[in-house]
């Protein structure tokens, strides 16, 4: 009897343990249309398991992920695991590598082995469903202990929520590409500029932009957003708790459809330890600009017994996302005055890019040395040379985040891989990826072609190539390659180039990355601004298994 009882206990424990082992890394997600209340009144939205954002999925490196996704919409849906290394048919892009989307009422089971760790996210890759609410965080704990131990670990999903129908947004942009720009230059701005720069310079500036038929206030194509932290509006104030002196890890994910953010926590140094899920040598900064679909993990150590505000301002300054770190619930951090909105300059047009644009009147664009563009050189992601800025001057140029003097903003050049890169070969060839389009008509292209007519980027298996992005437009493009990391060519040693899944390419500039084509299949390659992708800025990279000499 005694031994029997003992057996029974073992069985009991085994039964408890068994489903746990089998279910480890298994999730059931249901895509549905529900009412959500974000802005104070219920709005019909797409949800995952009834939530916006969807639930945070947590996996352990090395385990098998099994994710059952049921589509309860009356249209095709999909989920894509952003930044994950996985078989191409599990990547979740309809029309690629044999995946055909999830039909209404059907369930698709994604299965893949987790080969990495870090902060990632997931979202729909069908139409504009991502804007409508289909996104969430995907966190993978490493097998090895975390490099930095933090007793508090919070996901901070930034997103841009709109009550407008996402397909309607694209249609409005097709009717009028300036539809959502409520920051255009006015008669008053002109007289203000006359006062500041003189009549001649102000007039010349207007004539130059008019000549090109482009708008220096075109920072974000879509506005009217409520900016959310973990699904909460600024009023509802998402709060993460800490004990003073504790380390807090914040996993920032920009799950926005269209919005870049300048992120800071006044009063705290941000130690950046991960970019796009990949460990980097810690970089202490005061703020960082996060492109759409990027992730940054930062460590903060709030010492005081008070609330700290997490402030994320979109670059068009049409609002802000805000959360709070607080020692207890119910506190609310101070909200600093909003920073000024920048104005694009002629150099955001890119002198190199301008030859490539057949905007008719480009030929007589000269005399670039006047008023608006003198202080813009060496544009690097997110950062301005703060010493150059005189107080009171209006912010100039895409990269100008109005970082106060003495404060440091993260730059791509700061990112240095913590792990050694295995493949440090030089490229066998360079592939130029031109980013352009027709802003007046809201058409966006890669190498002059829309997604329907795009030429795929052909890569041999194992091949080491350099991708050079040439941005011929005056908008930034967060370029995302599925299935493989690229390495920023950012001045770090070859074995320490940082891995990225999204590369921000600033307006009118070029940026190069290296990559090893070691994941066979068809992979989506696109601008992660949702409406740019929808309007054509997408192609595919095909990694073909070829003969061995291709690879060497």
């Amino acid at each position: 009897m005694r031994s029997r009882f003992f057996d029974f206990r073992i069985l009991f424990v085994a039964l408890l343990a068994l489903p746990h082992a089998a279910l480890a890394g298994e999730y059931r997600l249901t895509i549905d249309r529900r009412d959500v209340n974000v802005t104070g009144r219920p709005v019909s939205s797409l949800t995952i398991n009834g939530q916006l954002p969807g639930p945070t999925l947590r996996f352990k490196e090395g385990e098998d992920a099994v994710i059952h996704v049921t589509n309860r919409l009356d249209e095709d849906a999909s989920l894509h695991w952003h930044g994950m290394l996985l078989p191409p048919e599990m990547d979740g892009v309809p029309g690629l590598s044999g995946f055909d989307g999830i039909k209404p009422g059907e369930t698709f089971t994604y299965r893949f082995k987790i080969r990495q760790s870090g902060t990632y996210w997931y979202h729909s890759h069908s139409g504009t469903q991502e804007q409508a609410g289909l996104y969430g965080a995907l966190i993978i704990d490493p097998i090895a202990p975390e490099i930095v131990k933090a007793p508090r670990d919070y996901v901070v999903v930034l997103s841009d929520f709109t009550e407008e129908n996402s397909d309607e947004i694209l249609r409005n942009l097709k009717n009028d590409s300036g539809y959502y720009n409520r920051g255009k230059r006015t008669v008053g701005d002109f007289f203000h500029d006359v006062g500041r720069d003189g009549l001649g310079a102000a007039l010349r500036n207007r004539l130059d932009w008019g000549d090109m038929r482009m708008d220096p206030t075109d920072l974000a194509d879509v506005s009217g957003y409520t900016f959310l932290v973990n699904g909460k509006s600024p009023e509802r104030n998402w709060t993460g708790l800490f004990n003073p002196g504790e380390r807090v890890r914040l996993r920032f994910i920009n799950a926005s459809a269209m919005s870049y953010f300048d992120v800071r926590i006044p009063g705290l140094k941000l130690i950046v330890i991960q970019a796009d899920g990949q460990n980097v040598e810690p970089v202490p900064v005061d703020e960082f600009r996060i492109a759409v679909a990027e992730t940054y993990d930062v460590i903060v150590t709030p010492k005081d017994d008070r609330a700290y505000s997490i402030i994320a301002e979109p670059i068009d300054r049409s609002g802000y996302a805000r959360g709070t770190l607080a020692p207890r619930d119910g506190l609310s951090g101070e909200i600093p005055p909003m920073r000024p909105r920048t104005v694009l300059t002629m150099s955001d047009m890119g002198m190199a890019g301008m030859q490539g644009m057949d905007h008719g009147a480009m030929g007589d664009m000269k005399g670039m040395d006047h008023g608006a563009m003198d202080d813009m050189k060496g544009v690097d992601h997110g950062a301005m040379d703060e010493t150059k800025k005189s107080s009171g001057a209006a912010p100039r140029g895409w990269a100008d985040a109005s970082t106060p003097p003495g404060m440091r903003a993260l730059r791509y050049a700061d990112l240095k891989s913590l792990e050694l890169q295995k493949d440090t070969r030089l490229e066998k060839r360079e592939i130029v990826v031109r980013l352009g389009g027709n802003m007046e008509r809201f058409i966006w292209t890669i190498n002059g072609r829309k997604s329907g007519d795009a030429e795929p980027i052909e890569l041999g298996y194992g091949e080491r190539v350099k991708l050079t992005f040439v941005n011929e437009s005056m908008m930034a493009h967060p370029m995302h390659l599925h299935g493989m990391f690229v390495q920023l060519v950012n001045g770090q040693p070859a074995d320490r180039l940082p891995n990225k899944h999204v590369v921000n390419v600033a307006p009118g500039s070029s940026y190069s990355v290296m990559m090893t084509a070691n994941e066979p299949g068809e992979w989506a390659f696109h601008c992660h601004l949702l409406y740019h992708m929808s309007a054509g800025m997408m192609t595919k990279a095909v990694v073909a298994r070829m003969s061995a000499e291709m690879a060497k």
Partner: protein
Amino acid sequence: MRRAIPKLSLALALLASTGAAWASGPHSKDDPNRETVIFWGAGAEIDGAQFDWFESKAGALVNWYAYVWAGGDDLKFRLEAEGESLDGAVDSSELRALLNWNIADFWDFQAGVRHDFEPAGLTWAVAGFQGLAPYFFETEARLFVNEEADVAFRFEQTYDLLFTQRLILQPHIELNAFAQNIPELGVGAGIADVEVGLQLRYEFTRKFAPYADLVYERKLGETSQITQALGEDVESTTIRLGLRIRL
């Protein structure tokens, strides 16, 4: 008029078949990704004025312009209606069915048909350009040829001047010219008329904007003499109150 209707329907059929050919055309066959995404848009401006504010005679003036388009980035079908009525009687009314080809970043080439219901039932072939000229001038330049081989030309331009993000002053100009006298229309060869205006609109939203429009119209040249001979005014100034709608 009697001859015009069959011609109009013929032309419309031609347009329709071109449109159908394009819709099923070079796309879609082999590559599932090559579908043409179809968008649409529509809008209208309608306004009214009382003549007696400025003129000795009285009269209620109504002007309308409406359009609807559907299509892809390269080719769009566009339907436009435009007209004017005075004291309840329709002075001029025309309908245009056009295909817009995107030929340059800022320009569409247009071709199609126009049918006038008033003042005379005339059908015209249309060719022209529509787009954004340097310095942000919205521009339309169109050539019309009717069944009698009469040639007409119309040029329109507008410019948006923002006082605020919502209060927008739009100077506009329209000019009509003819290659010959057209008695049915009461116009003579040369520049027939010019209309300049200042429209001040307030955009409650992009899609809903009431406006006031100060418009000066004047007949010129031969047309002016014809008008005078008919005992009508060669110039007029009106303040129109209207509504601009976009869908």
